[in-house]
């Protein structure tokens, strides 16, 4: 049925939401009637979002694909800069649920037409009165458009309880604005070029924006079907680990380059090989010291730590990195020479009672009777 549009209408609806997210950068987004989480899977790539939630009455459909929302290996290999938590709840859109309060954006894509009309009123009260998000995107079929859909009789889906005309939808939306203090803009997706203007879009969309500022309400955490926190640099453990890894990597790299340079100079009998200071590295006994100032010029270290002062502070708290006494350089052991060929035997093999002495003069052939 939707194939008359390219891209298909459902994709156009998702893209509408994604464009809205890109433009308005909401931090907390909840999708009502999230079904098998298709929209959530698309939204999770948008770094602006810190909390992404889904609500559906049917936990079976949520469960079917919810693990696809989990972080993938590469999310751990290079944690993002921004935090992201994904939560899925089982619940009804017609009931007040404290977990759904305090969102920046509520999306309800092709949902309300599945509710009985009396439930739509409860839905309206719950979403705009109770949840009171900063913005809401509500989409529903436009009954005016139905005659243009070939072969359609009755509603577009067997489970639809109603399909509103443009006027009906707008009446409802304007009432919402009056009652709950929102402003609404009407738009939609799916248009046939030659159609009359007055018919409007195939899917009509109301974008609601709150008319007053709402404070964040505390959220409760119960009956959560799924909760996953993505690794991000906002987690102090992950940050520490990432920073230390970068520092050690660059310190070792600089050390290697520096030692190679010295070796080159010695081999070419240039004078004062060790005296060169332009790389800033120096020796202290058996160790090589890499100044933090030098490390801070590596883009990734710089990006993570900001200033040398910050870097020093972070590294002093960490036991994996050894600093010089004055705290200005990383100390690395110069362990260059290793025996490659013959692995020296460090014996820690056991001794025990299983000393079965060997058997002598056997002949297995005769035992076989041959």
């Amino acid at each position: 049925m939707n194939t008359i549009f390219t891209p298909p209408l459902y994709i156009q609806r998702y893209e509408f939401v994604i464009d809205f997210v890109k433009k308005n950068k909401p931090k907390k987004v909840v999708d009502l009637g999230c079904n098998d989480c298709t929209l959530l899977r698309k939204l999770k790539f948008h770094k602006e979002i810190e909390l992404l939630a889904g609500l559906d009455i049917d936990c079976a459909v949520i469960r079917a694909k919810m693990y696809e929302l989990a972080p993938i290996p590469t999310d751990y290999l290079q944690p993002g800069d921004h935090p992201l938590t994904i939560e899925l709840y089982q619940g009804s859109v017609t009931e007040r649920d404290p977990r759904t309060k305090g969102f920046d954006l509520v999306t309800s894509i092709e949902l309300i037409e599945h509710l009985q009309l009396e439930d739509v009123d409860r839905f309206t009260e719950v979403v705009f009165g109770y949840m009171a998000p900063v913005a809401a995107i509500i989409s529903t079929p436009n009954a005016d458009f139905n005659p243009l859909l070939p072969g359609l009789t009755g509603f577009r889906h067997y489970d639809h309880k109603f399909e509103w005309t443009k006027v009906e939808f707008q009446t409802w939306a304007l009432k919402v604005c009056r009652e709950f203090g929102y402003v609404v803009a009407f738009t939609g997706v799916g248009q046939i070029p030659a159609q009359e203007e007055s018919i409007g879009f195939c899917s009509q969309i109301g974008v609601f924006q709150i008319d007053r500022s709402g404070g964040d309400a505390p959220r409760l955490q119960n009956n959560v079907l799924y909760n996953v926190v993505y690794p991000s640099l906002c987690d102090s453990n992950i940050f520490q680990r990432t920073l230390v890894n970068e520092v050690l990597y660059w310190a070792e790299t600089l050390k290697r380059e520096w030692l190679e340079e010295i070796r080159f100079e010695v081999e070419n009998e240039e004078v004062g090989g060790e005296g060169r200071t332009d790389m800033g590295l120096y020796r202290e006994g058996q160790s090589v010291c890499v100044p933090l100032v030098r490390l801070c010029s590596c883009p990734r270290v710089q990006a993570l730590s900001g200033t040398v002062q910050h870097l020093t502070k972070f590294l002093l708290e960490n036991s994996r990195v050894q600093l010089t006494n004055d705290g200005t350089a990383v100390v690395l052991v110069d362990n260059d020479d290793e025996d490659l060929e013959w692995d020296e035997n460090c014996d820690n093999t056991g001794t025990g009672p299983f000393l079965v002495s060997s058997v002598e003069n056997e002949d297995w052939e005769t035992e076989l009777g041959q």
Partner: protein
Amino acid sequence: MTGRARARSRGRARGQETAAPGVTPFQETAREAPPSEGELVGRGRQRTAPGAVSSEAVIQISAGFQQVKIGERGGRRRDFHDAGINTRQAMEHVRESKSGFSGSPIELKANFFKILSRPQWVLYQYHVDFKPVMESRRLRSALMYQHEETLGKARTFDGALLFLPHKLHNTETVLYSETRMGEKVQITVTLTNELPPTSPVCLQFYNIIFRRVLRMLNMQQIGRHYYNPTDPLNIPQHRLTIWPGFTSTILQYESNIMLCTDVSHKVLRSETVLSFMMGLRQQSGDQRFPEACTKELVGLIVLTKYNNKTYRIDDIAWDHTPNNTFKRGDSEISFKDYYKAQYGLDITDGNQVLLISHMKKIGPSGGPPQGPAMLVPEFCYLTGLTDKMRADFNIMKDLSTHTRLTPEQREGRLNRFVGNIHQNTEAQTELNTWGLNFDNKLLSLTGRVLPSERIVQGSRTYEYNPWQADWSKEMRGIPLISCRPLENWLMFFTRRNNDVAQALLQTLNKVSTPLGIRMQRAIMVEYEDRQESLLRALQQNVKKETQMVVVVLPSNRKDKYDSVKKYLCVDCPTPSQCVVARTLCKQQALMTVATKIALQINCKMGGELWSVEIPLKQLMIVGIDCYHDTAAGKRSIGALVASLNQGMSRWFSKCVLQNRGQEIMDGLKVALQGALKAWLKHNNCLPSRIIVYRDGVGDGMLQSVVNYEVPQIMESIKTMGHDYAPKLTLVVVKKRISSRFFARIDGKLTNPPPGTCIDTEVTRPEWYDFFIVSQAVRMGSVSPTHYNVVYDSSGLKPDHMQRLTYKLCHMYYNWQGIIRVPAPCQYAHKLAFLVGQSIHREPNMNLDDFLYYL
């Protein structure tokens, strides 16, 4: 299975299937695709109109059920466990018992956990029919979802087959669903099978459930195994990240269904392919970059930033950048725009070249494979190690300090893992709905420690400390079995290494006398520290009568070594010995090093070092291994090494290079004939027994060894004469296995002593197989070697088979101790590796009778 799949490398990630050259995808699909509607599963014996299933029928049906596969999402999976290949049946002498008896019993623990299920546990298999026929599997699943109240929460459905842990009220249940379009669909669910817990389908099923459980423990799947990403180990110097994880398989073992789980570590790189390439460009320079890049990257597995898939890099598209477009639906879109639109990902480097991965998976709805996937280096992360890293001693040392676990640490991790499953409520709920659970402690079993061997060296015999499995001290001052006098030999060195070369020469002289080696002074040749000048020096100085060439290399860079070996193995066949100068620098170690070199030199010229008693006459032992050269057009190299005498101290070696898609055995057939002819020459008769140890068989490749290689070997033997019918045994040797054994000694969990043999409980009922721990390890946990006798007309008792195998582990001349595998396997490995890594051509046949590759 197809040629390439069989010849697949052991070293690469296993999650990847390989496509079959020359086999059209259609044929493959026809054979392996999950059964579709209309064609009821089972193999002929299945009733087409299933009624009430009688209990006898169940047994009969289940027995013929070996090949049915269920996929979690209906996908095709290769059977990595080689299940359903019943080789034991054909060997009468082991049908009753395959256990040995020699040695002393030892109490062991193994990394196995028993599966506990409700008594009378049965899995019910239903066939599901849709009317009208629903093409999309996804839609079929969605329609089934609407009937949770009838079917229950616990169910597995792949589009045609439905599995339930409980029986529905009726044999045939008719349900009605409605599609989103309002189309009414009639679903008929018919009972077709009651599967006992041991049926292959059930086993597959347990594995699927177990993977679900692992996902609930927040573990990440990479390839076939699961890893814990939240507690990584880092080696920042090399940008390596190591994830601890577990390998796990649930199978029917000798007497129980068990979960075998071992600690595994996944090595990942915390840098993208792009940053790796930039580093490489800096190192190698623009000129050599494309070559270096191909060499390093092709064959590696990458993870992407945007989906949870792994790809193998097959090629690099030097003419593609993210600005190139591809067809998406009806319109062209650039890679850059695609990733931005689809995943919100920005490409920062618009000039990077793209990576090519050939997709092996069949396309949607069983169509032909999709075209190659183009990957953006910036969004790809490397996994595993490159060959270069593997060769880097420092990296490997750092890695092993992180990944080597003592038996006690290993036991601790395994217990914690199973403990976590028991404590996780979600996991327990899942297991409970299916009526399954796991034992909470490691399996206890009894093994045997085989008698230790006496080492025979000429007229002298001696014993070694069985715990150390090493006789380098014991053999001091005892003459070798046979020595080749060194009369005409050369030593090459650079000016800088003049001192160490002289020191080596003196020390070699000193150590060779007690070994019984007569040594004339070598001709010393100095060469300039360049590859070409070394080659020129070789060309000018190595003569026909030269017996041995020793080269002191200034560094362990591969190119000089390769050119020495290439010249002296192919163009001018002469045994050679390379030494890196640095090894000779340590004064105190020089005696040890020189002794080892003297021993190697002697072997390479055809000398014999030691032997063990082999109580079988006219026995030829053959070892086979292969190496997969990923760089050189994915050629495979097969090596065959065969014994020439009673003492297993002389060997015939042959190496063959195979092109892509060719069977490794095709070339080795000829090599085996060569070996038999060489035996005839040495013994004036043909062997009456041949025992082949076949190494290098990957997971899931057993069937092809049984069906293809055994007949090929027999055919090859037949060419020696019509009335020649020696007894033949083929043993598949496997080193990469996840079984582990621990011994409790003095209240401490330790490695079992060398010679520990296990042939009960954890072996497979359908095979004639056993494990031997032959080597001693100084750090970490020892890994046992698995031996699977797939063909045996020798009538040899299992006890003798085990003992013989263990004896052969004593015979590797490059190590004065016991090794992991029978010596011929290790020789074959060494030869294939040398050819694959350095020579890339078939060595000269004049060298066949020498261990020149040691």
